């Protein structure tokens, strides 16, 4: 397998497999936020703010994988 094909394969695998974990994590986070809001609707504002912080942190991990894929495609 030559370098070009390996680069393309690596980029595809990085971007694809790298979003499995963050996707599952975000599902758990948002699901537990919905459950907590259903239990105590008066705390909905605070819970929503914390949820957005969590989403930002988790989405960063998915985007690390995308950055690796872009580095493989365009820089190396």
């Amino acid at each position, binding site marked *: 397998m030559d370098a070009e094909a390996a680069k393309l394969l690596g980029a595809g695998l990085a971007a694809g497999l790298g979003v499995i974990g963050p996707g599952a994590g975000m599902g758990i986070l948002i699901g537990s936020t919905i459950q907590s809001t259903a239990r105590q609707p008066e705390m909905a504002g*605070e819970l929503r*703010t914390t949820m*957005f*912080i969590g*989403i*930002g*942190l988790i*989405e*960063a991990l998915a*985007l*690390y994988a*995308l*950055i690796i894929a*872009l580095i493989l495609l*365009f820089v190396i």
Partner: protein
Amino acid sequence: MKKGCLIWLVVVIAIVVALGFAPGGEPQEFHVASEFELEPIVQLPSIGPVDLSINKAVIYLWISVGVIAIGSLILNRSLKNPTGRLFGAFAGLYDLARLGIVNSVMRKGQDTWFPYIASVFFFILVCNFVGLVPLPFGHHHQLAFYSATANLFVTLSLASCTFVLTHYAGIRAKGVGGYVKGWIVPAAPPVLKQMLFFLEILSEIFRLISLAVRLFANMLAGHVFFAVFFTLAVLFQSYLLASVLQGASVIMYLFEVFVAFIQAFIFAILSAIYIGGAMQESH
């Protein structure tokens, strides 16, 4: 449903179906990555390793500064009318910065650090929103999307400000010895203590990198999504798919507006958490 509504729906569906049979356009070349290459517009001499020539990114930073300056002057004039809409919008953002970000996360240094956190929040917000407006900086002066925060060096500078100020706040509150001692977990066996101390230092460095890369990657991915969706709309040379993909592009654009706001908010609130965490007693 009213009869006028139904007639409009039938007409729109008929047009969309008829578009499927129209002959497509001509093939054109488009490179996604070429939007992110920076060529100097005005070549200035470089001082050592720092190249001072004026880039697309430099001009976008100046545009953000100009928007903030002119916006501040306009808002200053609106302070005389405390019930207007402009004042209400700005008061909402100020309350978000003050109550939502600083007061809800930091325990001790709220008044000291509010100017820095609010400045970072508003600067990144304006930079991200300016990046959603197409400006003529593309090839041959075409309209193109680019934002100053889609550049790793800009976000690294902003994250370095937060990094330096975190340690400055910690040292000012607890002294150098006390601050470094705060990184040592007292209730651990000695070998584990050294490893945990090393891990704390590593996590400080990783916070800097992750702040910078989070903002950079979100903005970069957003602009790449734009480029890809708009390219998809013209790639298939079919008017039917182009009209459907144009609608999808508009939805992606709305999502990018949301992401721009969220990323500014997250950068500011993480800065507040780090600075507040450095100042308070831990472990």
